């Protein structure tokens, strides 16, 4: 007699379902099947609601599927519908949901009273900020980041420049990609890459310039490695100052000294011309030449002839380049031969190595220049492409323009016509926007940490979505002056909106609890010009609220007090939102903030700016449907079409027929890009007898930037619990050091005690040490240098002279 099986419990059934979903997701990715996720959403029995969102962390812009049940994020899956990641995620990405649930989330506004904090109401918090701004509107500064969503950054931008006539707004992206911006502007007259991630699928050669995508952008890197696993021939070249996980996957590793990249780029250009292997057709048709104007230093330099360019490159023979860079002459020839081969498709990638550089603008332009000179530009697989580290460094900082000199859409405050266009869109009175750039990041914090009596003209800073107390360089000067240097700062006031306690909140006078990621609506823009959207899925904890709401609530408080700047031309509130019936929605009141989609209102207004520099954005609803769209997004026959490759006929709708390549924002107004010569110049600080080591700082796979989120994810924190100093084994032996020993590391600016890791993940050459910056208990930025690039104002975190000594156990 047969017997029915025991009924399985609901929990077991559910577990079985989850396992089946997990396997189905993996099978879909592995098999490359034509059906697409969300297969997960099609199963009502699971009780899990799946929605799309871009990952919270880096600038790659992977899409995840977020599984929500009973008001909590319970699962994360890669999104196979997403072109960026095709269903894959890195170790940080698949733990991203847990970033919401650290046990020390900030949940109430806190006001400092002496050494303690008092819980206060949001009303009191908003009044406190408004009091500070009202008292000294010109001494107020807003410090944001590339983690601001597009609407958040846009609201902050409008509040400051269109409301307070105050340009002291700058983002932490100044610290990570400002030199990429100036590099694009100096070369093409307009910011952001021409290529996209599709180049990774098409290139024959991938050159990484001071870049470690195996750890920092692992999904992009695995896209290339995957091609090789399938038997395709892809040559990977790592040009860097230490061996990394990226190096392990590369056929060629070119180990250079700091600033060696300047010499290498010149060496390649020298050989291309000497060997006659540059693309004369491309150069003659589409390029001009530039050199620095030493008499009048400016971003656009002076025009030179091809012969002058050739003459300036004469000294950069492979042997001379070897002496400057440390890279053998044969490897310089190898690079030149690759660039000299028109049959190859070559993509260059870079990120912090070229940007955190006191000649960052120069090296950015020079790598663009090699691609232009050799004609490796404008076809799939041929592209110079900078990557970003934050989810919206491009979307918010570069496109919304939350920089102290910028306006949305690539416009600048210094240009009267641009100001007028912005004032018209914002409907603020003519003359409202100040024509003088505000303080860039380093200047802003230096001024904040300088007593008012000594000229420190910033009195209050409001920080949103970033952690400058850990990430600014030379912290003992720019954030946390020591000893007598902190006297006279009693009148300064620091406001910090964040989700967790950080090195920054520790010094804050007012702490505001923020909603994060899928606790709010959002839009971001990734490294390949892709604008992405998601909806709020869960409530933030306690009294945490959206950063955008916080900005609008302060603006409204000032509006209530009659501050003129908070009104538009018609006397209406700057952030007036009306519903479909024409009735005003009180979005400054948290209870009503989600009565309407504030993101959509702000985005539709911001979108008007996107036309000025041909960075056209589609209506909000198009992004709801898509896993992101790459601008310019142009409507053709009723369809919104994204652009894969800019400036190239057949891809870019703004290139005129028959032009092939058209740099339509050329700084020389002739549709030409600029090929730059810059001389090799030594780093701002080099090792000497007193400080014999070169310190390089950076990131690790497991942690995202300052670690304020990833260190609260147990799996990631266990995998990489604390910072360390990587040393070469021979340097370690010289100092009598073994793995785990502690050293005192000192620079001219600060010191810390840190354990050493010899032959660890990264392998620095002799005379170099590497320390990651994710660990807030070991602030390596106490030691780093605050020297900046003259044009981008971006500091160099990769080259500071230090000394080490063993700390007795």
């Amino acid at each position, binding site marked *: 007699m047969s017997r029915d099986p025991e009924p399985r419990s609901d929990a077991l059934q559910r577990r079985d379902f989850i396992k089946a979903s997990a396997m189905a997701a993996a099978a879909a990715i592995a098999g490359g099947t034509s059906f697409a996720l969300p297969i997960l959403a099609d199963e009502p029995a699971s009780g899990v609601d799946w929605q799309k969102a871009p990952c919270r962390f880096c600038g790659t812009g992977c899409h995840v599927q977020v599984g929500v049940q009973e008001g909590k994020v319970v699962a994360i899956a890669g999104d196979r519908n997403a072109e960026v990641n095709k269903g894959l995620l890195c170790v940080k990405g698949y733990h991203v949901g847990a970033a919401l649930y650290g046990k020390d989330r900030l949940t109430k506004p806190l006001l400092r009273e002496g050494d303690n904090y008092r819980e206060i109401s949001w009303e009191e918090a908003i009044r406190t900020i408004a009091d500070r701004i009202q008292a000294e509107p010109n001494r107020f500064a807003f410090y944001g980041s590339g983690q601001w969503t597009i609407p958040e950054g846009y609201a902050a931008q409008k509040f400051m420049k269109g409301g307070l006539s105050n340009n002291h707004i700058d983002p932490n992206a100044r610290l990570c990609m400002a030199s990429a911006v100036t590099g694009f502007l100096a070369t093409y007259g307009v910011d952001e890459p021409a290529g996209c991630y599709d180049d990774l699928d098409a290139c024959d050669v991938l050159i990484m310039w001071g870049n470690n995508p195996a750890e920092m952008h692992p999904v992009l890197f695995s896209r290339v490695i995957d091609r090789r696993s399938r038997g395709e021939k892809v040559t990977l070249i790592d040009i860097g100052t230490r061996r990394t996980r990226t190096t392990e996957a590369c056929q060629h590793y070119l180990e250079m000294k700091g600033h060696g990249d300047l010499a290498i780029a010149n060496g390649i250009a020298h050989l291309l011309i000497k060997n006659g292997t540059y693309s004369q057709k491309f150069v003659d048709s589409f390029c001009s030449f530039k050199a620095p104007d030493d008499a009048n230093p400016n971003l656009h330099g002076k025009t030179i002839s091809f012969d002058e360019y050739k003459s300036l490159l004469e000294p950069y023979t492979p042997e001379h380049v070897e002496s400057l860079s440390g890279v053998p002459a044969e490897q310089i020839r190898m690079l030149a031969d690759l660039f000299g081969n028109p049959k190859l498709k070559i993509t260059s990638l870079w990120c912090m190595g070229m940007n955190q550089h006191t000649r960052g603008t120069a090296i950015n332009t020079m790598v663009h220049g090699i691609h232009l000179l050799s004609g490796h530009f404008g076809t799939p697989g041929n592209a110079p492409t900078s990557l970003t580290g934050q989810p919206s460094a491009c979307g918010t900082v570069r496109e919304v323009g939350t920089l102290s000199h910028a306006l949305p859409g690539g416009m600048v405050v210094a240009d009267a016509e641009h100001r007028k266009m912005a004032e018209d869109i914002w409907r603020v009175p003519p003359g409202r926007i100040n024509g003088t750039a505000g303080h860039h990041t380093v200047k802003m914090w230096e001024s904040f940490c300088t007593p008012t009596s000594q000229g420190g003209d910033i009195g209050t800073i409001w920080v949103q979505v970033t952690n400058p107390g850990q990430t600014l360089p030379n912290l003992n000067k720019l954030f946390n002056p020591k000893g007598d240097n902190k006297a006279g700062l009693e009148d300064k006031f620091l406001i910090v909106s964040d989700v967790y306690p950080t090195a920054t909140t520790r010094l804050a006078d007012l702490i505001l609890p923020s909603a994060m990621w899928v606790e709010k609506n959002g839009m971001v823009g990734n490294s390949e010009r892709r604008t992405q959207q998601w909806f709020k899925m869960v409530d933030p904890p306690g009294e945490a609220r959206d950063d955008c709401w916080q900005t609008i609530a302060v603006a409204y408080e000032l509006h209530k007090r009659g501050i003129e700047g908070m009104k538009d031309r018609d006397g209406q509130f700057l952030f007036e939102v009306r519903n479909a019936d024409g009735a005003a929605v009180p979005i400054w009141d948290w209870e009503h903030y989600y009565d309407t989609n504030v993101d959509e209102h702000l985005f539709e207004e911001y979108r008007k700016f996107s036309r000025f520099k041909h960075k056209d954005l589609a209506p909000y609803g198009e992004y709801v449907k898509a896993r992101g769209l790459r601008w310019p997004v142009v409507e053709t026959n009723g369809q919104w079409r994204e652009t894969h490759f800019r400036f190239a006929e057949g891809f870019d709708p703004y290139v005129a027929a028959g032009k092939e390549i058209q740099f339509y924002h050329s700084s020389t107004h002739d549709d030409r890009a600029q090929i730059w010569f810059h001389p090799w110049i030594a780093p701002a600080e080099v090792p000497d007898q007193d400080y014999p080591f070169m310190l390089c700082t950076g990131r690790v796979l497991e942690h995202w930037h300052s670690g304020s989120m990833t260190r609260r994810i147990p799996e990631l924190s*266990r995998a990489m619990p604390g910072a360390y100093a990587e040393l070469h084994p021979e340097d370690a032996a010289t100092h009598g050091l073994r793995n785990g020993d502690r050293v005192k590391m000192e620079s001219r600016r600060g010191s810390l005690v840190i354990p050493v890791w010899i032959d660890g993940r990264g392998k620095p050459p002799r005379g170099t040490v590497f320390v990651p910056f994710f660990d807030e*208990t070991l602030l390596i930025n106490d030691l780093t240098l605050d020297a900046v690039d003259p044009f981008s104002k971006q500091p160099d975190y990769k080259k500071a002279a230090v000394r080490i000594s063993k700390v007795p156990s």
Partner: protein
Amino acid sequence: MIASLVATLDKDIADLSEIVSRISCIPGVELSDAKAVTHRFPVMIDSPDPDSLEEITRRLQQIPGVAFVDVVFVHFEDESDSVPVTPSGKPTCL
């Protein structure tokens, strides 16, 4: 914790069945019924805790012939302890 991965195999694998056998021997690992006709292999892991998950993933990565492992899905509903981030107690300037 339940997770799924895609193991990418080296392109010049001599004996696929040997790799399959080695993967199958790892406790908590389930292979897809689908045959690995490509160089990518779906794997599901049911582990009692995050440490075990990491250990299993590490073992997978160490199998000769496995080029690398990508995680596709993680279900982390089960509570895990939060890691406190210890402040360094630096002096304040304000």
